């Protein structure tokens, strides 16, 4: 479910890069890859290579070198496989893996049954960010109070629904063609059709009604992603009862829409719909809204994102039956108490958005051919993304990344997992630290987090016998936030006072999604608070919220741990 809202902030950048670039130098693609932070990092090296060699030279040279290298490692005779790596699914995870594989010199193919880009680009993060960009601006323009405080005068703001929808759609196509071109440019073979595993190291693919092609590869990555999950009893007609897939097309802006589920997807859509004038009713099965978030952040978020807006909610209820509008009747939603299962209420609304999470898309993958049984549809994997079969044994040369394994349903997590797998198959053992993967929800203001929530940290501390401390800073004290008149916000640090380890960071406030990376990088690199607190932040910037956060932590560890005092450097 999470994958829908990741990676938004990179979007406008990539858009821009593409525009300027596509016109001038259509062949030189690497710069386009900026839309994905991880990819950009991974691609830094190949970008250099690319600049001084043609595409064909680059790929072929890379190939010969790496194949021999892999041959040495594995003792597999070269040329016995069609490819070194086949990736089933060309979403963000598959794309990330493919680019890294090319960089590592692997002959790579990617099988795509639908459209390149997967959920994120076509039906998730990317178009939703376009809608959220619109909603953010609308919200600002409509906030008379906010404008007045800045001394601005704006006459009534309005919008053209089709224009907004087109913006989202155009953005998705741009990013999609960027992705496709970037892979083509690097020599990744894009095989069209649904892929399925027919045996060890063997994959078939083909369009419906056409003969299947069989290809072999030394290693296979399953990256088939997920689809919106629709609980039983809910009839989706695509018009009045919809999933995020339909909502992103913005074919209508209903007066009153019920959103089933108050996670990332629901929350982001509530932001969009209320900015465009809808009223929203949340239906949440758990006792509180935004159950996935740190409770304190969730509470604050509710205070800012729910209570003052045209939103009401029913918590602790299941929507057991949702009937689309027809024959002049509205959409009806039957609610039962989540605990007692007794009928609670019936709602009549103009539309219902089902945002109850996402289900893995793993049907028809041929997993039975290699004795793998999915768990609630998810492909079981170990911490290295290696697929586990029904007997609990690892399936050699088969990996599964992204939403299909369900470890962390975020686009950038899928990509990171893919890169981790490529590292492993090219001879370097690698285990991805999922606790260092940030997540963000692009409401206005944004919510972001990395690592553990406070309750999770306390539970862990109890089990493992260490102490947990919490530090907090407010956006109210930040100059830049106040300059924007957006002082509402909180950053929260959960850490070990004994050794300065960062356990989790949660931010709610202006540009929270961009701010989280200082914390996620610190966790990924094992940087301790006593070290990072000496890092300098430009003034005045929002990043000082985190600066202050680290400085306000009270770590008992005596001296900076592993970073030696460096030589004085003067400029």
């Amino acid at each position, binding site marked *: 479910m999470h994958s829908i809202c990741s990676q938004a902030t990179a979007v406008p950048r990539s858009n821009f890069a593409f525009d300027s670039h596509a016109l001038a130098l259509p062949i030189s693609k690497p710069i386009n890859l900026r839309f994905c932070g991880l990819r950009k990092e991974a691609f830094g090296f190949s970008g250099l290579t690319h600049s001084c060699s043609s595409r064909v030279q680059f790929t072929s040279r890379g190939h010969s070198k790496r194949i021999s290298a892999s041959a040495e490692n594995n003792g597999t005779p070269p040329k016995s496989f069609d490819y070194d790596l086949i990736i089933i699914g060309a979403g963000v995870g598959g794309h990330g893996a493919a680019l890294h594989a090319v960089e590592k010199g692997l002959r790579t193919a990617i099988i795509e049954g639908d459209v390149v880009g997967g959920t994120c680009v076509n039906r998730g993060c990317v178009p939703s960010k376009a809608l959220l960009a619109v909603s953010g601006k609308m919200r600002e323009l409509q906030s008379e109070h906010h404008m007045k405080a800045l001394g601005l005068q704006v006459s009534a703001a309005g919008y053209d629904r089709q224009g907004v929808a087109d913006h989202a759609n155009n953005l998705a196509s741009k990013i999609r063609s960027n992705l496709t071109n970037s892979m083509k440019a690097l020599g990744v073979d894009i095989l069209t059709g649904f892929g399925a595993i027919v045996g060890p190291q063997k994959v078939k693919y083909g369009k419906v009604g056409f003969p299947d092609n069989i290809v072999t590869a030394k290693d296979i990555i399953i990256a088939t992603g997920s689809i919106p999950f629709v609980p039983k009893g809910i009839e989706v007609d695509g018009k009045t009862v919809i999933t995020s897939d339909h909502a992103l097309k913005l074919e209508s802006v209903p007066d*009153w829409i019920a959103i089933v589920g108050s996670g990332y997807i629901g929350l982001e859509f509530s932001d969009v719909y209320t900015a465009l004038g809808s009223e929203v009713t949340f239906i949440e099965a758990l006792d509180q809204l935004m159950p996935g978030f740190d409770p304190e952040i969730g509470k604050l978020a509710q205070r800012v994102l729910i209570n003052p807006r045209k939103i009401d909610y029913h918590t602790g209820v299941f929507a057991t039956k949702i009937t689309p509008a027809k024959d002049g009747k509205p959409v009806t939603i039957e609610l039962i108490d989540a605990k007692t299962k007794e009928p609670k209420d019936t709602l009549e609304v103009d539309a219902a958005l089902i945002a109850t999470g996402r289900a893995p898309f793993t049907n028809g993958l041929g997993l039975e051919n290699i004795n793998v049984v999915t768990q609630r549809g998810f492909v079981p994997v170990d911490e290295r993304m290696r697929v586990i079969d029904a007997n609990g044994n690892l399936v050699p040369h088969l990996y599964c990344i992204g939403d299909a394994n369900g470890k962390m349903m975020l686009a950038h997590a899928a990509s990171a997992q893919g890169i981790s797998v490529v590292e492993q198959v090219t001879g370097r053992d690698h285990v991805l630290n999922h606790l260092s993967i940030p997540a963000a929800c692009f409401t206005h203001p944004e919510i972001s987090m990395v690592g553990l929530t406070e309750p999770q940290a306390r539970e862990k501390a109890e089990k493992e016998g260490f102490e947990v401390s919490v530090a907090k800073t407010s956006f109210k004290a930040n100059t830049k936030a106040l300059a924007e008149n957006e002082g509402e916000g909180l950053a929260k640090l959960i850490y070990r006072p004994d050794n300065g380890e960062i356990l989790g960071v949660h931010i709610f406030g202006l540009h929270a999604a961009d701010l989280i990376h200082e914390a996620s990088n610190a966790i990924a690199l094992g940087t301790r608070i006593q070290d990072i607190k000496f890092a300098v932040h430009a003034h005045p910037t929002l990043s000082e919220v985190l600066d202050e956060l680290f400085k306000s932590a009270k770590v008992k560890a005596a001296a900076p741990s592993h970073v030696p005092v460096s030589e004085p450097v003067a400029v």
Partner: protein
Amino acid sequence: MAHILQTAFLPSTSALRRTPISGSKGKSQSLQVKAKIREIFMPALSSTMTEGKIVSWMKSEGDKLSKGESVVVVESDKADMDVESFHEGFLAAIMVEEGGVAPVGSAIALLAETEDEIAEAKAKSQSSSGISSAQVVEEKPKQKEESEPAVPAVAPTVSSIKTVAVGSAVHPASEGGKRIVASPYAKKLAKELKVDLGTVVGTGPMGRIVAKDVEAAAAAGVVAAALPASPAIAAPVTSGIELGTVVPFTTMQGAVSRNMVESLSVPTFRVGYTITTNALDALYKKIKSKGVTMTALLAKATALALAQHPVVNSCCRDGNSFTYNSSINIAVAVAIDGGLITPVLQDADKVDIYTLSRKWKELVDKARAKQLQPHEYNTGTFTLSNLGMFGVDRFDAILPPGTGAIMAVGASQPAVVASKDGRIGMKNQMQVNVTADHRVIYGADLASFLQTLAKIIEDPKDLTL
């Protein structure tokens, strides 16, 4: 009972709620050793703080509190701060919801000492009017002043929907009035403006209640309350008034205040007239049995007079022109519980007196049930305000914005009158006083209108035509 006690005891017991040391109340409290239900006050978090906003309740109703435990986060003018409980007990009732603002020193929640008293405290916080009297009777130390309709069950919206629905708003979505269907924003507004959704008729899709319906319902009260006086003053004002306290305006009262100030921008003047009512009284006696009311008679007479003086039925909308209204709609001020409303007798000049009387009765019933539709209270072109039934012999009305004139009607009283032929006799006389917008209605207009009106009332045969 409550009301009786209240009026009797109020002078000596009010204002004691927060200073329970003085007077009889203080004694009773000291006798009542076990002060079981305490208030949690809005603390002063800084020297400059006058009010605080509840950021969040860290505890829910029913939660146990130990001394020194944080209960609530309050946002002052300076910062957000946790507020601790000074006592042990159970958080019985939250009186100011999250996001609400309360002045420093006012109660924001009730703390019960034992679990058993939670219900009691809750009940207290819920009982809205007659609280002061309940206080006197039960001699309980602490009370909740103004009650939020506190919600008993877990899911607030759901349960309130179920309990409120008393079959008023009839629309397709409500299953014949069993449920209330209101949009999220409408619900929010209703809470804010203290409008009972059960009394609002929805005009949204499928007949649901939408924000503008709630606004209209709230405005109805405001428009009505903009009038200076009313017949049949109930006594809602006296309930629960604490002497020596400052009570901020409710949203509706705030709007009334704004309207009143706005009326100052209209240049008004007044013209009075004394009308002999013997003939009218006689007519009234004659047709009273047919359900005709004095109000209807006065409205009819006024309408007939207006028909001859269209300028008095006009108004000035933009400061540059006369707006001559096509129909004569007489708005009549009526006091209802908690406010004032002006049901409108439409086309009063054309409708016969019996129909008009029936219509009037229907409007009054609807007004009391708070079921008036917007067009039934905001389409008046001329307003009547009658305080005669209280013996008021003359008064003066403020012109409701958007209309041209309002007539204040005093009591009809016997007077010794000298007639032109030099004789002295007894006659019933009634004083009327018209307030009008001088931008469109001039003194001569009012004078001739009043002359016509007097003629009609003094020779009322036309009224029954």
